[in-house]
């Protein structure tokens, strides 16, 4: 049905007959009719080849190189998302404009850029400006788009895709490196890296919780240059809270000052509490082994644990679980 033109999108009554007929044909011929669909994807200059499945091998290889970004089982690359989304959407628009003379050029430029940018980074689909350009119906957008796709090198998954609840994203409890949920929030116009907190120049705030204290705090790691400074900050943060907690659990109201005790020995195991952290792989680690800047780049959150409980806790989720004392806390 090569003569088939934009009437495709005319309103329903006209379509009905065609579609019924078409469906029957499909059932007879399998999917061969699909090749005659208006919309085609693929590299320019190969449009004629699209309708012939005989050339499938070469064509598919070429297609695969364009779309070869981790979403086909044969391809071993481990890229996660791709900007083929962009490419495909743009390709659709281009094809749909029925301007075979201009599209090949536009698409071929895009094609090269796509594969380049795909191999390194992941598209930021949430980048408002570029996306809107992609959807723009104006034919001129075809030529404008290649430029914008160059800019679309920012990595980062799409917000809310795949559409699963957040708790499912954290499920695989192994140490495969995966971004924490926060990194899924793609901020427009920012280049997000694997550690999204780094992209914020102002500070590196991580949560810190302490055993026995129900309310957590946050610390800005950029404010400290060393482990010692961090340890003393932790002491300051929690000393008062710890004292208050002990007072309330003892059922007495006491002047906080009198019963505040310094929290010491966080780093060397000598104190009542020890500082641990959770890294970007989800593992719990003792604070202090890495150089400070390395620590800052991998830490996700901090915890102040009772030193006595360290040996009974699993520090790595892969290890067989040591039976816990039944009486926790």
């Amino acid at each position, binding site marked *: 049905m090569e003569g088939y033109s934009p009437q495709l999108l005319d309103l329903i009554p006209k379509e009905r007959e065609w579609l019924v007929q078409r469906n029957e044909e499909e059932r007879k011929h399998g999917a061969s009719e699909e090749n005659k669909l208006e919309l085609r994807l693929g590299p320019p200059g190969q449009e004629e080849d699209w309708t012939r499945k005989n050339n499938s091998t070469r064509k598919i290889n070429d297609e695969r190189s364009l779309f070869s970004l981790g979403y086909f089982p044969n391809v071993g690359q481990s890229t996660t998302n791709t900007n083929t989304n962009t490419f495909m959407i743009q390709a659709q628009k281009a094809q749909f404009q029925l301007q075979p003379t201009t599209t090949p050029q536009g698409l071929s430029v895009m094609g090269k850029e796509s594969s380049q940018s795909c191999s390194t980074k992941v598209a930021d689909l949430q980048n*408002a400006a570029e996306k809107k350009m992609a959807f723009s119906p104006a034919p001129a957008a075809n030529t404008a788009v290649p430029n914008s796709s160059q800019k679309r090198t920012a990595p980062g998954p799409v917000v809310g895709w795949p559409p699963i609840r957040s*708790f499912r994203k954290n499920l695989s*409890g192994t140490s495969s490196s995966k971004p924490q949920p926060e990194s899924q929030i793609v901020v427009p116009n920012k280049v997000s890296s694997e550690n999204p907190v780094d992209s914020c120049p102002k500070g590196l705030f991580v949560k810190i919780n302490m055993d*026995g204290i*129900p309310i957590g705090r946050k610390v800005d790691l950029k404010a400290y240059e060393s482990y010692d400074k961090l340890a003393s900050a932790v002491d300051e943060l929690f000393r008062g809270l710890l004292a208050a907690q002990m007072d309330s659990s003892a059922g007495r109201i006491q002047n906080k000052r009198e019963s505040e005790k310094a929290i010491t020995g966080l780093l060397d195991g000598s104190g009542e509490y020890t500082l641990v952290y959770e890294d970007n792989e989800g593992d719990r680690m003792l604070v202090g082994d890495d150089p400070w800047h390395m620590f800052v780049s991998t830490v996700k959150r901090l915890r102040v644990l009772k030193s006595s409980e360290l040996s009974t806790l699993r520090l790595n989720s892969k290890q067989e679980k040591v039976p816990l004392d039944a009486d926790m806390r």
Partner: protein
Amino acid sequence: MCLAYMMNYFPEEVLEHVFDFLASHRDRNAVSLVCQSWYRVERFSREKVFIGNCYAIIPERVIARFPRVRSLTLKGKPHFADFNLVPSDWGGFVLPWIEAMARSGVNLEELRLKRMVVSDESLELLARSFPNLRSLVLVSCEGFTTDGLAAIASNCSVTPLGELAIGDADAMVGLILVLAMITPKVALTLFLMELDLQENEVEDCRGQWLSCFPDSCTSLVSLNFACLKGEVNLAALERLVARNHNLRSLRLNHAVPLDALQKILMQAPQLVDLGTGSYVHDPDSDTYNKLKSAVQKCTSIRSLSGFLEDVAPRCLPAIYPICLNLTSLNLSYASLIHSSELIKLIHHCSQLQRLWILDCIGDKGLGVVASTCKELQELRVFPSDIYGVGSAVVTEEGLVAISAGCPKLNSILYFCQQMTNAALITVAKNCPNFIRFRLCTLNPTIPDPVTMQPLDEGFGAIVQSCKGLKRLSLSGLLTDQVFLYIGMYAEQLEMLSVAFAGNSDKGMLYVLNGCKKLKKLEIRDSPFGNVALLADVGKYETMRSLWMSSCEVTLGACKTLAKKMPRLNVEVINENDLIDASSDDRQKVEKMYLYRTLVGPREDAPEFVWTL
């Protein structure tokens, strides 16, 4: 004389009695439209009220119309809130409803909430104000802490509660509280799932809430805390199970090890629904042997879940005896069970009606499901590795196998790497009975990898074949064509989810024109704009709501729509301060949510929500 005329002469008590047989609120709504007297009888006799959008009406008017309401169901946020597309303080507060009902002396027995914000204050007011409250269901709600929970638990001994079940949370503070009565006595079901901690979450309480149930509480029917992150007081747990002989459903969290499970099962052979915690032990140990014999005594278990975090494959055979009787199996949290072990397990599950599983089962595993689970009605396959580094995923082959092997299949949620038109067409032929069909390709715009075509034809076949389809979620590369098919064929469709699909306004127009029963339409990242939005403004009053985000709709069009349709609330959600009063009308709106309402703009909208 026609029957309707005769009916009018029936005493109202008779009418009321007849209406008692109408269970669904839709039927009751229809009945109340017949005439004034039917309206009156119906409104005084309605006990269960369903409000699909809490902002469509205010509580006072609901209570005024249905003074005898005993059971209220409320839904708050739009569905896309589950995927972080709606800011958390958008709205959906239950407190005004509870306050209004408390003030009016409503005899509330059951409250069911979905995607609403439930504060501790609300819970406390709820517990205090309604002495006959026996059922509280919160699905995907947020806003309260385990403090609120402990308060309710403590009140349990005083107020005659029924079942209290909290399950199925979402990431923020998702707590489902299901409270339903099984016996007239105080029967308590605690079903608790809290999955992630917000900054100021009260952590410490999580171990202690179990102890809030007094020793006198012996009527626990269901206890589910599978997704709670924290440690649990195992001794308290064991004691609780031991004294609650009516316990039917028990779902543990990861902190409950296998040896504790064994002791618990010894005390509760009457269980119908079991969720294990972590499941790892030495299979050659005494404990494991004891577990095996305990399991064999649990002949009533019909529903199984769990296997959280740690799983020892060699310990799985202990549960094979349960598998024979299972009708429901949820392994969607068991990311550490290898597909070969899953397959061995499935081989024993010939009675399954509902299966939730991770995609690491693979196509081959789904083939085993297809050949084993002939009673299967609902299947959900969740992604285990969405960051794409693994190779264990499912493709169209698995879906086709299932459709061929499971003739009773009517509901599917399927996350997959890829899909083909041919497969979808085959599935459509094999399973014309789908009520819910939700497909999600991990790459949202992936074409058919064999033909490189969009998936229009495949989904077209689905809507054409499944004449009873009520819910559809699309993904993959899609053009306006698929919407043409949907508009033409999906006559019963009530909910449609669209993402990254379509080429032009025509796509959306096909759906709006064609789907007469459409109630909810949610669209993201698709090129639908003002023409589609404004073509048939009256349509939106026949629907509950429309969500459009990252589309082509402009502020001006939203304003026009709002002006034309005073009985719609058109909300522009403006998180990044992109739009303000001085914005150009030509500016595109990032997130728009509109819904029909009888009460105008809501008063509790936060700053970033602008009702036009």
